């Protein structure tokens, strides 16, 4: 469903990604791992159109999205949860969620979507009048995911959902990601937490300074010594 073909991009005149080819199939969960500065976040931003792609192309469900303005991508079914969760801190939880259903296709059924999200995350209903920024880290992550669900995405892109969360909260976040995936939503995930990332995904890519160093089944990557070495230096 998502096909990335040999893309090169960066910031200003600084090249960050040097020919990345990657795909995510329908219903699949794919993990993207690699050290800081390898270009993981840049790749996600390129997919979402937040930075221009220098060369190569990206297609989503057969449609070339390389040159589309970023704000048109959510309507195609891509929901991007940026690093740091992307919760609007000055906006109430309720309005955050409504904004998740800003695109026309989601707007018409946003009342029922809201009910579904509140069913998954009862805490959000409890706190719906609170400002996004007043929530705890874990609640913010739930809000970010809940808001993405409001748009009924076909592909959800998550940038380090476990960042700065307590281990117990991380567990529940990954459980939710698994549930979402079980409903048929494709997921592309960046994660430092190697075990969790490879546990929820079926395939993974290891990014190393702008290139794909390794790829394969998550289980294989999990037992790969090179991957462990990259993370622990052992």
């Amino acid at each position, binding site marked *: 469903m998502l096909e990335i073909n040999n893309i090169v991009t960066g910031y*200003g*005149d*600084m*090249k*960050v990604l040097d020919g990345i080819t990657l795909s995510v199939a329908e219903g699949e969960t794919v993990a993207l791992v690699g*050290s*800081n*500065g*390898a*270009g993981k976040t840049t790749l996600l931003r390129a997919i979402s159109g937040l930075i221009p792609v220098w060369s190569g192309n990206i297609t989503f469900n057969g449609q070339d999205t390389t040159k589309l303005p970023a704000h048109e991508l959510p309507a195609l079914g891509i929901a991007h949860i940026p690093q740091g969760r992307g919760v609007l801190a000055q906006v109430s939880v309720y309005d955050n969620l409504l904004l998740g259903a800003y695109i026309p296709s989601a707007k018409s059924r946003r009342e029922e979507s809201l009910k579904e999200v509140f069913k998954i995350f009862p805490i959000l209903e409890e706190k719906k009048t609170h400002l996004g*920024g007043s929530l705890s*880290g874990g609640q913010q992550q739930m809000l970010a995911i809940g808001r993405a669900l409001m748009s009924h995405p076909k592909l959800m892109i998550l940038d*380090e959902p476990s*960042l*700065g969360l*307590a*281990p117990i909260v*991380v*567990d529940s976040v990954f459980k939710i990601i698994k549930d979402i995936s079980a409903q048929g939503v494709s997921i592309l995930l960046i994660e*430092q*937490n*190697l*075990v*969790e990332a490879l*546990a929820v995904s079926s395939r993974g890519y290891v990014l*190393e*300074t*702008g290139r794909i160093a390794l790829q394969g089944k998550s289980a294989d990557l*999990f037992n790969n010594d090179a991957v462990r*070495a*990259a*993370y*622990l*230096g*052992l």
Partner: protein
Amino acid sequence: MGTLLKVSNLKKSFGGVHALKDVSFDLRDGEILGLIGPNGSGKSTFVNTIAGLHQPDGGEVMLGEVNVTGLEPAIMARHGVARTFQSSRPFLNLTVLENVVIAALLHEKTTAAAETLAIECIEVAGLKDLLYAKASSLPIEKRRRLDLCRTLALKPKIIMLDECLAGLNPREMEEGLDLVRVLNKRGIAIIFIEHVMKAVVSLCHRIVVLNQGELLAEGAPADVMKNTKVIAAYLGEKYIHAGN
């Protein structure tokens, strides 16, 4: 080895988030101390708080006998505590030489003397061919070198390197590590923040691990890396149970 920098009970929070809860450790003369921890564990906050960019909410930082808690960045630089930024921040519209001269002026009175010192540092950093190149024209690897070079020109006692290898390929990373070793051989103690563990393990004499703003472990690299708490923090709780 004597203690160069003593950090006791350092605290810092932003809004309701406790970025540093209660961090204490020492940096010894001439050592390279690795500061590691998962994203968001408070490493950068630590560097920024020591360097004076943030005011600590509590705790004490002693540089030798001098209390340097909460001093301004410019004063910290004068005390011999230099730092680089996580995202490389050279003065983009200035030349390499000008970038380093600005730092060298901290101790040199005239621009001529500063230029001499700057060129010396630039040679150490291996940027001699690029004296008059604008910093904006440099690739990331050279920018990182320029960052290091600027701190060197401050004639510091301590350099805090905040992910100075991020964005480099393995070969460049090796060269970067060599440069850090060269600085260290000049008697400069180094606090080294890095994500690539291989680099940390090969470079550092000692490692301190932060997790969620707290000190998780401290010790020799090999020992710390075997510490189950550290593995759990990095790779996830389950990695340990997965039979490794």
